[in-house]
């Protein structure tokens, strides 16, 4: 066997000030042309470990011990100048956030050319030709135009392709991709990753994919490294790790993947609770003096019924209008046309008291949905202001019970910043449920959370729903979560509903092409065991 391309041994990285280990005794190798996944939750040190290869540690962190050998050279003994020369031609990196990893003030072409002109001495024409070739290779429609365009003209998926193109231009031996598709929707995610694999194969590049998504590991990686709190938990063949995890933590991760609850739809649908017809929402329309310029239709004529106690999931790619639909149904944003009926009564454009008090919203980002200057107990108590005939004692009791219900008994006196993301989301859920609503819109409630936390929060949500019997509009791009919680599924594309049906119908017998594409793009863990169902990740 040949020597590995990259050999990390006993790597330890500390916080300079406190000496706390961020990465502790981590060793792994990657061979030439191999696809390795580094898996872990936030705080596991996976990003820091990978960045150490390039010598790009965030300020305040320091490598204490360990060897990083790239292609026979020990990077610890290499001068910073030499290390800089390695970045690009030897090791390339693609970052998570395509919206901010390209410089908005420089044209795409110049950014791509930067690496080439820095590391290779080539005539301008040659550089341009190579860039155009590469842009065509990553399936950008009009390379010549793209070359002179600026980053803001492109969507997240396109930018990530441009990023990939500019990194691969230098034909690096090793490509480090740090959650490259986390900010993208499922369809785009698949396109970008497929491209990455193709390019890597063409150039013989090894890939380190840093991810929290086990589905991607199953689909793309040959080997996987599992990390937890800075330590290496398990390494081995990707299939092996996923189908027969040896360590407790790895098993937890695999088990945390959402699964379809066995049996058909959980409850028979109750009475008709909400009914939306012909709903349209427009953005950016401008009234001029005499004519009205039509805006972008985010929601374009949606009809939807929701029955008491059921969970209706809305799925679709980014820009499909699913978030807008949720807000418009709650009458939080003005709609251009259409009706919202709640319990047989028409809800006016400015929601009436009855509807406002019986509907609630759970947000995606638990970091911005809680007022940082209010204690947790006060946050949960706030909706009770509008419940009449409740004494201060009753109110406190109800808040305590609710906190207990979401597993955070005794947290009332804490501040939001003292809680983790998962705990914050529990508080947000408690706030939504405390007034016993009939209808809850949950807008990507678990997308911002770690895998194991996602599973806990989803389970909590389901339990609360059984207990309190509210109907839920579950907005998500995460098909796995949808498969676990939904009774019915609505598929949206371009502001319209293209297909709706029971969960099993949509997942097992999709009719519309867009639904099929969505399902195909979602990676699946399939271990080929007859007694175990397929798990979507």
């Amino acid at each position: 066997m040949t020597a590995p391309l990259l050999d990390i041994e006993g790597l330890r990285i500390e916080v300079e000030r406190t000496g706390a280990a961020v990465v502790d005794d981590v060793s792994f190798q990657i061979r030439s042309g191999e696809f390795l996944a580094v898996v872990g939750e936030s705080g596991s040190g996976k990003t820091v470990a990978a960045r150490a290869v390039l010598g790009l540690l965030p300020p305040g962190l320091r490598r204490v011990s360990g060897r990083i050998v790239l292609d026979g050279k020990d990077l610890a003994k290499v001068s910073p100048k030499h290390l800089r020369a390695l970045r690009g031609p030897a090791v390339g990196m693609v970052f998570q956030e395509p919206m901010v990893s390209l410089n908005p003030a420089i044209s795409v072409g110049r950014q791509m050319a930067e690496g080439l002109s820095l590391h290779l001495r080539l005539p301008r024409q040659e550089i341009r030709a190579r860039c155009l070739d590469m842009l065509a290779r990553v399936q950008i429609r009009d390379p010549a135009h793209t070359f002179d365009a600026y980053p803001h003209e492109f969507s997240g998926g396109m930018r990530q392709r441009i990023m990939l193109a500019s990194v691969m231009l230098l034909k690096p031996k090793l490509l480090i991709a740090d959650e490259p598709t986390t900010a993208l929707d499922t369809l785009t995610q698949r396109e970008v990753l497929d491209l990455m694999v193709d390019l890597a194969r063409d150039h013989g590049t090894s890939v380190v994919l840093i991810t929290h998504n086990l589905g991607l590991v199953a689909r793309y990686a040959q080997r996987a490294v599992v990390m937890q709190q800075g330590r290496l938990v398990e390494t081995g063949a990707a299939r092996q790790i996923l189908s027969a995890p040896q360590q407790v933590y790895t098993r937890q991760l695999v088990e945390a993947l959402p699964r379809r609850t066995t049996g058909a739809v959980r409850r028979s649908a109750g009475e008709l609770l909400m009914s939306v017809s012909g709903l349209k929402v427009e953005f950016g329309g401008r009234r001029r003096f005499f004519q009205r310029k039509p805006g972008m239709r985010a929601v374009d004529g949606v009809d939807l019924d929701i029955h008491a106690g059921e969970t209706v999931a809305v799925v679709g790619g980014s820009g499909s209008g699913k978030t807008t639909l949720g807000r418009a149904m709650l009458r939080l944003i003005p709609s251009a046309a259409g009706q919202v009926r709640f319990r047989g009564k028409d809800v006016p454009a400015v929601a009436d008291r009855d509807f406002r008090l019986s509907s609630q919203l759970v947000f995606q980002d638990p970091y911005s949905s809680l007022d940082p200057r209010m204690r947790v107990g006060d946050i949960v108590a706030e909706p009770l202001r509008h419940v009449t005939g409740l004494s201060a004692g009753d109110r406190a009791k109800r808040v305590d019970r609710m906190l207990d219900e979401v597993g955070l008994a005794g947290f009332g006196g804490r501040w939001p910043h003292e809680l983790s993301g998962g705990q914050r989301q529990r508080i947000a859920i408690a706030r939504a449920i405390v007034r016993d609503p009939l209808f809850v819109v949950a807008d990507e409630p678990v997308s911002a959370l770690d895998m194991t936390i996602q599973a806990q929060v989803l389970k909590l949500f389901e339990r609360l729903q059984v207990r309190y019997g509210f109907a839920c509009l579950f907005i998500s791009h995460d098909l796995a979560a949808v498969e676990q919680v939904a009774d019915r599924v609505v598929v949206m594309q371009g502001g319209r509903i293209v297909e709706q049906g029971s969960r099993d119908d949509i997942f097992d017998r999709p009719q519309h092409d867009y639904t099929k594409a969505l399902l195909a793009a979602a990676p699946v863990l399939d271990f080929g065991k007859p007694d175990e169902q397929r798990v979507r990740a």
Partner: protein
Amino acid sequence: MKIRANTAIGGFLIGVLVATAVTAAFWTPFDPLRVNLRARLQPPSALYWLGTDEFGRDVLSRTMAGAGTSVTVAFLTVAFAVVIGAALGVVTGYVRGWTDRVIMAVNDALLAFPGILLALGVMIVVGANKFGIVLALGLAYIPSVVRVVRGTVLSIREKEYIEASRVIGNSEFYSMARHVLPNSLAPVAVLATSMFGWVLLAESALSFLGLGVPPPAPTWGNMLASSRPYMESAAWLSIAPGLCIALTLLGINLLGDSLRDRLDPRMAHG
């Protein structure tokens, strides 16, 4: 709780200041207004610790007596500007639309005037007395408070907890007062402490132009202003009030910083 050096030094300076002002209300070494032409421009001595001014009045007594006036005027002015400015800023940033456009148009017009000119105009209308100064300087400083608050409010109003408040069924006014306002005040605390200094100086500028607190009542501002011709021959006249202004500013700034940190739950444990 651990008390930081900031808080300790700031607290000490302001404590001394308040103690002085209170003492001066009952007792000063000499009557700050008594003219004694035989003791004109005496340098500091055992009798007159900080010397005497051009009318033979005791500088120490006048500095002590001026502390109350100067600091009261500055404090009231800042309070007035911050309360009105923050209220307008929150409303204009939160409500947007026509309200925003009208308030900001007036505000920007006021901002275009030099503050002191604006204050002069107001002083001429309301007359030269303590409350005239508070009103005049307050009005002159409101526009910058409005600008700063509106800027923060524009970002705060897009936060999801504001939408959450709306979903709960809270009125717009309640959301503004309970969620938007407290979260928009951190930059105001910083602005207010620096404003305190500007006001102390602006008051002296007004006095210099003959529109401040009318003589013979002492303020640090008018003491500083009247000491100007004697800068070379009797430097002690300007040193005493000047040093007082400087130390007060230092104290207020230190205290303001620690107050801002203390009020923010995210910083309170640092």
